């Protein structure tokens, strides 16, 4: 009864404790990545986790026979559940509705299993060692393990391994404890061979998960993005990637930055307000592209606007910005507003079939980097859009960078002019994009009056800033170009050439 506790067992306790805390940290981090609001997420995750550990401790009294083999089985189970937790959570994140249930389900399950570990371990050891010694050492190592976990998690594991691999690594360690205990007490366990085999297979499975972690979660792009990828999805049309670094969210479509949450207001204010502020009568607004709802957010600031129709090809995109909590925070629930009607359709065909007129039209398509998108920058398309623009209405087109791609920018301008529209080109500086260009277009007999004041609360646009935006310095000055047509698509060629020099 006075035997000293073998070092091996103490190491096991230590590992078990470290793993337990690591799972908790992973769940908390993942929740704050994916759901935002880290204080709430961490607080609720820790609460649920500790509570579940309590349940586990309470349940432990119902384990009466074969405690040793129960302990080994639970270790294996903790290893598997904990190891796969972050992968599963990342994967199910796309089916948003059930995400919280899965998240807290995982946290509870892990908590209960971890809660079982120490009580069972103590009961296994209670008859073999001095009780006061046992309690003191087990809890000492338990808390040291916790300290170690809390230190290496942010300092070593997240920067070097990432969430998914860390989970697999500690899953393996957990199962390794099972294996060690199994080998140590093999005489006392009836199905020792079976348990050894089970732990062995579990380790292999987790190892495979560890090696193929990138492929499983298809976050293989993580190396090309400097920030942490918190969401990625391939829709039939594009690959959507959302990254987060500190508080900054970035959205990439097919690898191209669409917005960065710290300066997107500069882009969206410039896109919407110079036009819409000049149309106090505007009731019906159309947005094409812009499935992120950020332009819609700006439009909804005008009480005179009765309806906003958003036409975006990709349901995956609009769906994400209608359901994800962080993104809803970013677009202020714009796409859930009763004034907003979201239509997932091909803009060209949709406009062709459309008869209703709109007072203000925002054209916010991806850059004309291929022939498919290039069609949406042609005279044929602008002719159709002109047809659904109310007589006194305005439209505004995001028109790539007049600094990097002057020929492209002025081609859009020329193409708009070619269908009998008067244009008002302007530009501003968006740190993530650089110098960016927009073009307002309207019927030639309309007079565009620069707004004298803007809605309160805007961060960038003002009467003075618009004056600057309307002025084109020499290095962005107008160049002569051709009209972009379906049968020549010169814009795609210009765009490719001009950006090739930069990227």
């Amino acid at each position, binding site marked *: 009864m006075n035997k000293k506790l073998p070092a091996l067992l103490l190491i096991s306790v230590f590992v078990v404790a470290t793993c337990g805390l690591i799972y908790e940290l992973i769940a908390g981090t993942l929740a704050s990545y994916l759901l935002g609001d880290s204080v709430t997420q961490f607080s609720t995750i820790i609460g649920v986790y500790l509570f579940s550990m309590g349940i586990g401790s309470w349940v432990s009294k119902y384990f009466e026979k074969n405690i040793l083999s129960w302990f080994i089985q639970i270790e294996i189970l903790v290893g598997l559940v904990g190891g796969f937790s972050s992968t599963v959570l990342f994967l199910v994140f796309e089916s948003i509705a059930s995400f919280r249930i899965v998240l807290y389900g995982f946290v509870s399950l892990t908590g209960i299993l971890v809660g079982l570990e120490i009580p069972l371990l103590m009961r296994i050891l209670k008859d073999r060692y001095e009780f006061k010694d046992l309690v003191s050492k087990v809890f000492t190592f338990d808390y040291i393990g916790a300290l170690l976990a809390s230190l290496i998690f942010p300092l070593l594991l997240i920067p070097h391994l990432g969430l998914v691999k860390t989970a697999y690594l500690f899953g393996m360690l957990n199962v390794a404890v099972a294996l060690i205990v199994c080998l140590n007490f093999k005489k006392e366990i009836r199905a020792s061979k079976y348990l050894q085999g089970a732990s062995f297979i579990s380790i292999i499975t987790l190892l495979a998960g560890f090696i193929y972690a990138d492929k499983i979660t298809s976050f293989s792009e993580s190396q090309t993005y400097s920030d942490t990828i918190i969401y990625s999805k391939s829709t*039939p*049309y594009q690959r959507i990637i959302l990254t987060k670094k500190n508080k900054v969210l970035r959205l990439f479509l097919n690898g191209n930055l669409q917005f960065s949450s710290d300066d997107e207001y500069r882009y969206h204010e410039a896109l919407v307000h110079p036009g819409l502020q000049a149309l106090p009568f505007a009731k019906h607004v159309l947005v094409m592209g812009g499935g992120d709802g950020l332009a819609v957010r700006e439009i909804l600031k005008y009480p005179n606007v009765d309806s906003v129709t958003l036409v975006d*090809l990709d349901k995956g995109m609009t769906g994400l910005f209608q359901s994800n909590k962080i993104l809803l925070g970013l677009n202020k629930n714009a796409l859930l507003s009763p004034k907003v009607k979201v239509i997932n359709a*091909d*803009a*060209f*065909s949709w406009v*062709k079939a459309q008869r209703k007129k709109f007072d203000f039209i925002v054209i916010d398509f991806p850059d004309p980097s*291929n*022939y*498919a*998108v*290039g*069609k*949406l920058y*042609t*005279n*044929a398309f602008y*002719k159709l859009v002109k047809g659904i623009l109310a007589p006194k209405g305005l439209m505004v087109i995001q028109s790539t960078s007049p600094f990097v791609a002057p020929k492209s920018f002025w081609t859009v301008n020329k193409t708009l002019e070619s269908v009998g529209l008067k244009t008002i080109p302007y530009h501003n500086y968006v740190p993530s994009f650089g110098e960016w260009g927009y073009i307002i277009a309207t019927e030639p007999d309309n007079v565009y009056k620069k707004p004298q004041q803007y809605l309160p609360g805007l961060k960038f646009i003002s009467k003075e800033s618009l004056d600057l935006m309307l002025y084109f310095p020499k290095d962005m000055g107008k160049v002569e170009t051709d009209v972009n*047509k*379906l*049968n*020549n*698509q010169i814009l*795609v060629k210009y765009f490719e050439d001009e950006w090739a020099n930069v990227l």
Partner: protein
Amino acid sequence: MSGQTFYKDELSAYLQRRSFLLRIGLITGGIFLNGCYKKIRSNGYNIPGSLQGPDAKAGHILRDKLKLPAAKSTRKVKTLIVGSGISGLSAGRWLKKNGETDFEILELEKHTGGNSYFGSNKIASYPLGAHYITIANNDDALLIDFLKEIDVITHFEGQLPYYNDYYLTFDPEERLLINGEWQEGLIPDFGVPIADKKEIRRFLSEVDLLKNTRGNDGKFLFNIPLSSSSADENYRKLDRITFEAYLEEKGYRSKYLLWYLNYASKDDYGQKIKHISAWAGLHYFASRRGKAANAEQNAILTWPEGNGWIMKQLAGPLKDHIKTSSLCCDLKPMTNGHTLVTVLNTKTRLTENIEAEKIILCAPQFVNNRLLKNFNRNIDYKAFNYSPWLIANITINELPESKGINLCWDNVAYNTPSVGYVNSAQQHLKLSEDKKVITYYLPLCDFEPAVARLAAYSRNYEQWLDIVIPELEIIHPGITKAIENIDFWVWGHGMIAPAKDFIWSDNLAKAKLPVDDKIFFAHSDLSGVSIFEEAFHQGINAAKQVLHVAS
């Protein structure tokens, strides 16, 4: 003609016929044996699809002179048009335009369109034959009027027509797979030696010069319709040598240039340069001068269903005049000067007689040959040779990645048997489609047309796969697994082949003449070039003659 040469002619004709039969026997026999072998040992591609073609059964009723039930009724029609290809529809349009109401268009197939017929599946509509036209020559007033009528020309800017933005071929238009990479345009350039490039430039500037040259009668040397070309003997004589001989004489030897010219010749005539006349070969390059307000010279107009779209515009307003599944079997002169036409309804198998004052035969001459046995036309039908074609409409779920520029409307590979494939989704406005139908065109020009035709008729679906898939695999390695379906379409008589001594021969001139001012002729084979514009003008010409005689 002395007796001896007569004997020699007879003998050589006999020998030619024997060797022809022998070759046919060998080739079709070989295909048959290969088919049997395949049945036993299939290397199966396991690609679903079909093998179709024009209604051969109906055609063979004509050829084999089957016994038909006696006609139960006779009705009168003032003008009867036989055939609803472009020439027949164009004739009908002209009659209608000029106030005629009593006319009927008979079509043996279940549908109108002839060569411009098209197909469709769940993914898209696609051509089965003719699939584009070029913008009209600006002096072709009749065609320009028609294009205005159907909104292909939307308005004029100054003197120049503005073509409908949706019908001009969308960019990117053409690419060529050469030296391992897809280059823009079809004229060989990527990896082509400088000497060859020079020769290509020399040829192109020569035809460019010819394009803008007028003959001693003040007309353009090469024009559309062909009948408006110059009669200048210095150039007409080019019809009496082959294109190949002409090029050799001019010192063109670059293999890249010769490939390109063979490609062009196959594309327009279904034959290589050695089997077409120099005049026809040059016509391809030197007859199109169309200028538009919103497109480059000779820009191409196309539709997902190819020329099926224009065909529908022609047929739509005529639908009350068109009778499909109606096989015209026999024409007989009547004592009252009219013509009695026996027509078999291929659905009901009943015949009826139509008494027609005037008839416009808009069928190819090999069909007219059988229809007109009661009339003396005094022409040599054997001079009319028709190139057989295979068209494959291939549904793919993706196109394997390849080097160079991306999928275009027209995609051609250097030194392969086909003339490439067109993307039938080119004119779609949708941004992204996961599946596509590509239309692959294979002229069957390795043997003389009659042999190639019989060989084509005897191949089964699997044997066509064996011919088409290996070429597609060369063009796009790995494409086979992306193929979901292939529909083959065999045109036994795809298009008239303008061999030497054909277009400006006396024989063809005679073939254009009406019989007794009662039977008139319209078909692109009477121009010698199978293009939409020729058929269109042929139809109008014949209709004009009918109206002229009537007045």
